[in-house]
C-alpha cells in the first residue's frame, strides 16, 4: 500500500464505563496521494446488542475505506488479485466474478469516490459480525473499451456485513440497496 491514511477518532459521548460508548464518530481521512483512501465516517450510536470499542471503530472505518479503494482499483483495472486483502466470502466471490465478466466483455468502471457515511446497525454480542449501512457519494463511469457509455452520479446506499479476521475487519457482504432502506 503506497497510500497512507490519517485516522482520527472523535468521541462525542463516552460513558464512565468505557464499553458503553453511546455515540462516536470515526473519520478515516485521506492524504492526497495517487491511490488515496476515500473518506469514511462511522456512526455507532445505539448499536446493539453490543457496543463498539474505540479501536474496533477505528479499524472498521480504515478497512472499509481500504476496501473501497481496492474495489475501485480492481473494477477499473480489471485485476482482482488484491481484493482478498479487504474482502472475503460472498463479497469477494461476487466481485471476482464481476471483474471476470468485465474483462470478458471489455467493459470497465471508474468510481470517483466522494466519501461514505457509515452507520453501524448491528454488532453481534460475541463480536463476530457487524452490519452497517453506507450512504455513499459516488460518481460511477462505465466504459466499453475507451468509450464512456454511462455516468451515474447519485447518492447510493449499501448494506455491509463485516467480520473480523486476525488483524483486520473484512467486508463479507456488500449489497446496494434502494435509497432510504434503513
Amino acid at each position, binding site marked *: 500500500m503506497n497510500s497512507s491514511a490519517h485516522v482520527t477518532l472523535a468521541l462525542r459521548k463516552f460513558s464512565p464505563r468505557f464499553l458503553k460508548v453511546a455515540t462516536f464518530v470515526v473519520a478515516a481521512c485521506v492524504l492526497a496521494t495517487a491511490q488515496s483512501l476515500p473518506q469514511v465516517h462511522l456512526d455507532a450510536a445505539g448499536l446493539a446488542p453490543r457496543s463498539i470499542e474505540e479501536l474496533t471503530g477505528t479499524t472498521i472505518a480504515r478497512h472499509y475505506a481500504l476496501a473501497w479503494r481496492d474495489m475501485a482499483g480492481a473494477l477499473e483495472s480489471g485485476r482482482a488479485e488484491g481484493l482478498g486483502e479487504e474482502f472475503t466470502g460472498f463479497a469477494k466471490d461476487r466481485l471476482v466474478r*464481476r471483474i471476470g465478466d468485465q474483462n470478458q*466483455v471489455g467493459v470497465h468502471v471508474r468510481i470517483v469516490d466522494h466519501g461514505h457515511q457509515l452507520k453501524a446497525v*448491528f454488532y453481534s454480542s460475541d463480536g463476530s459480525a457487524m452490519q452497517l449501512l453506507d450512504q455513499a457519494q459516488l460518481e460511477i463511469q462505465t466504459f466499453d473499451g475507451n468509450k464512456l457509455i454511462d455516468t451515474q452520479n447519485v447518492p447510493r446506499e449499501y448494506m455491509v456485513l463485516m467480520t473480523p479476521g486476525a488483524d483486520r475487519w473484512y467486508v463479507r457482504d456488500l*449489497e446496494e*440497496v434502494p435509497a432510504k432502506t434503513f
Partner: protein
Amino acid sequence: MQRISYCDFALGECLAGLALLCVLPGWAGAAELRVPTTVEAGQSFSIPAEGSGQAIFYLLGPDHIVKRSVTLGSDLAIQSSDVRTAGRYQVILCASSCSSATFQVKAAPPAHLSFFLRPSRVPVSTPQSIDATAFVFDQYSNLVLTPTAVDFRITPATGSGFSRPTSAQHGVAWMRMDSTPHEGQVQVTAVSGNTEEARVIQQVAAEACGLRMKAIASGNEVTLETDPVRDCSGNALPDGTVVSFTKVDREGKSTVDTPIKKGVARVQFSIHGPAQISVACGVVLGNEVTLNGKL
C-alpha cells in the same frame, strides 16, 4: 416503472451519430428503456426496447455483466441466471446514443439460515448468558433484507420447550436468554418459514452450593470427604471439578486441591496439634471443621 435517458457523447459525436442515422439504414434511433423498479432474484423478465435497428445492450450487476447486440423494437430477455444476486443493476442500451436505467434485485424468499449460538457450554441459571444470531439468506445467498419472522425454539434436556419469536431486521435476527435450570444439552432451533437450523449448547452445573464436608479421624490422620457437590439447582458438579481443602495447624498452613470423583471430593491429612480445616470450590466456601491432633 423507471425511465432514465442519458447521452454521454459530446455534441459533435451526437451530431455525427444523427448524420450516420440518415445514411445507415438499420442503425437505431434513440433508444428508450423501461425497466421494472424491482425484480425478485432469479426471476426472468423482459425489457421492451423501443426504436428500430441494431443496438448494444449491457446489463451490469453486482457479480455479472451481459453485453450483446440486440434488435430494437423487440423485448430484451433477461434470464433468471442474470439476476441472481441482490443489488442494483444497470441497463445500458447504446445505438446512436446511449440510454440507461437501473433496477433493484431483491432477495428471493428465505431459504437458508446461518445460525450462531454461543457459548458452546454455559452454567445453568445464568442470566443473559446465551446468544443466538441468525442471518436469513435466500437460495442465492442474498441476505433477505425485508423484515422476516424468525422463531427461536428452545428445547431443554428436561422440561417443556419454549420459543422466542423475533423479526429479522435487515436480514439479522438475534436474541439473548438465560440458561435454563437443569444441566444437559439444550437445543435451539432457528425457524423461518420452511427453513430451520438447529444448534446445541451444553449446560453445565453452576457454582457449588451448600458445600459441606465431614471428617473421619483415625489416629493422626484425618480423612475429609465432601457431601455430593451440587449447584443451587441440584445439578451435580462434573467429576474433575477441583475442590480445595485447607488445613491450618501447628506446622502451618497447607492446601490440597483434589478433583471431584464420583460426585465427591476426598483428601487425607496428617494433623499436628489443634487444626482448622476448611473446604472451598471455586468461589464458594464450605464449612470448617476443628480437630485436635495428637502429634
